[in-house]
């Protein structure tokens, strides 16, 4: 029995009269699908902020989470809970909608707290301010993720030029060919947030146009997070391997490996 929880923000305008019907649509569809997959759980709404808890067969959960994470109806997706359990916490609910600020919500959260070894702070979900449509304009990345608005390239370039970003996941071989440029870019972006200047400084990227093109490509695949939202990654940011005192040794190794790969390819 796998248990997974995530938070995200809905791309639904709260001033829109269809707000609650949109939410109901998501929940009702989820209920039907989850029932057929043997998945149960709860979903907490507070304004545009969501916390969803899912439990069930590990493989089914993994597939579903992947689908949900790429759903354009929400953004800032981040997994906050991932554990195993012997029993269902909510066996009767294929997807129960829970409103913010109610005693019932407290009950549900307490239950999750008790059964899952979670290290994240749920208070943000408990104490979210009442919904306000200015949420959108305050968040500089909201526009970028919103499917309703197409951002002209100029604006977009402004975003990548002014903020640091990092890689959420590598592009799949079924999506993109891993060229040398893409590989280097992704490698650089997987070690922590980088600004455009950081990337340029690495002499790798002789061609600015290709660099921008590849960043755009990754962004279109929704594989980039911008530093302001990379909260999850701040704590887990990898520390460069400094155990190996001799950096020169590693770089000589790298050169030898490149020579070797080149020579094998030439003889092939």
């Amino acid at each position, binding site marked *: 029995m*796998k248990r*997974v929880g995530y938070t995200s923000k809905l791309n639904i305008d709260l001033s829109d009269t269809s707000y609650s019907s949109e939410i109901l649509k998501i929940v009702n569809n989820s209920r039907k699908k989850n029932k057929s997959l043997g998945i149960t759980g709860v979903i907490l709404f507070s304004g545009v902020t969501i916390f969803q808890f899912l439990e069930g067969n*590990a*493989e089914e*959960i*993994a*597939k579903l*989470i*992947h689908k949900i*994470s790429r759903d354009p109806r929400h953004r800032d997706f981040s*997994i906050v809970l*991932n554990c195993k359990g012997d029993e269902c916490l909510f066996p009767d609910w294929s997807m129960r909608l829970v409103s913010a600020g109610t005693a019932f919500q407290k009950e549900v959260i307490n239950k999750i707290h008790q059964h899952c070894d979670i290290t994240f702070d749920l208070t943000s979900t408990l104490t979210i301010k009442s919904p306000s449509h200015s949420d959108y304009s305050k968040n500089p990345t909201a526009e970028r993720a919103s499917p309703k608005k197409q951002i002209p390239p100029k604006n977009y370039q402004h975003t990548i030029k002014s903020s*640091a970003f990092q890689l*959420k*996941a*590598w592009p*799949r*071989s*079924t999506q993109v060919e*891993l060229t*040398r440029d893409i*590989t*280097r870019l*992704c*490698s*650089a972006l*997987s*070690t*922590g*947030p980088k*600004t455009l200047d*950081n990337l340029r400084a*690495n002499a790798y990227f002789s061609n600015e146009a290709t660099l921008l093109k590849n960043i755009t490509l990754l962004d279109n695949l929704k594989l980039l997070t911008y*530093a302001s939202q990379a909260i*999850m*990654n701040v*704590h*887990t940011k*990898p*520390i*460069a*391997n400094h*155990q*190996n005192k001799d*950096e020169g040794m*590693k*770089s*000589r*190794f*790298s050169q*030898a*490996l*490149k*020579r*070797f*790969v080149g*020579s*094998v*390819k030439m003889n*092939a």
Partner: protein
Amino acid sequence: MIKNYQKLAIVGEVGSGKTQLIRTISDISPFETDVQSSVDIGKEFTTVGIDYGRLMLDSDMALGLYGLPGQKRYAFLWDMVNQGLWGLLILVKHGTGFNAEMFESILGHFRSPQSYTPILVGISHCEQATPQSLDAMISAIEHSLCSHAIVAPIIPIDPRDIESSLILLELFDSLNSASQEATPDESV
């Protein structure tokens, strides 16, 4: 005398292609392996169940290849090589269902906030796979990586194929170069 020695750990379930990959890479080595010591080192590991091979890159430079079983009960073997790794390759076999539990126990063991090891996931036995089934498998793997806050490439590989093995080495090289450039106090 080998002065510059790096280690690549290859961990994976039964039949995922560990032995095959080590053989493929060792066989393309352009330099004469120092037979004596290779056998000696090899024996030390094979007797406890670790596959061993090496790729000579120069007369004094080599990449050691260590094939390790994926089941958690062999974690004591993992610890025998888990020190200053150049890379960790996790091999998963397509077509037998993704074993998330095994995969995540490997991730948890090898990657901690204190030790950054470049990780790559290779999917083997997938030359007959449909794009849909490959995608479903990648989704499951991505989810496991994501829940451990790990960002790593997931690529289909054929351990029998030289070119496929070279791509793998190039990717590890790229990940290592990037991790050397990442300074820990980088402010955003």
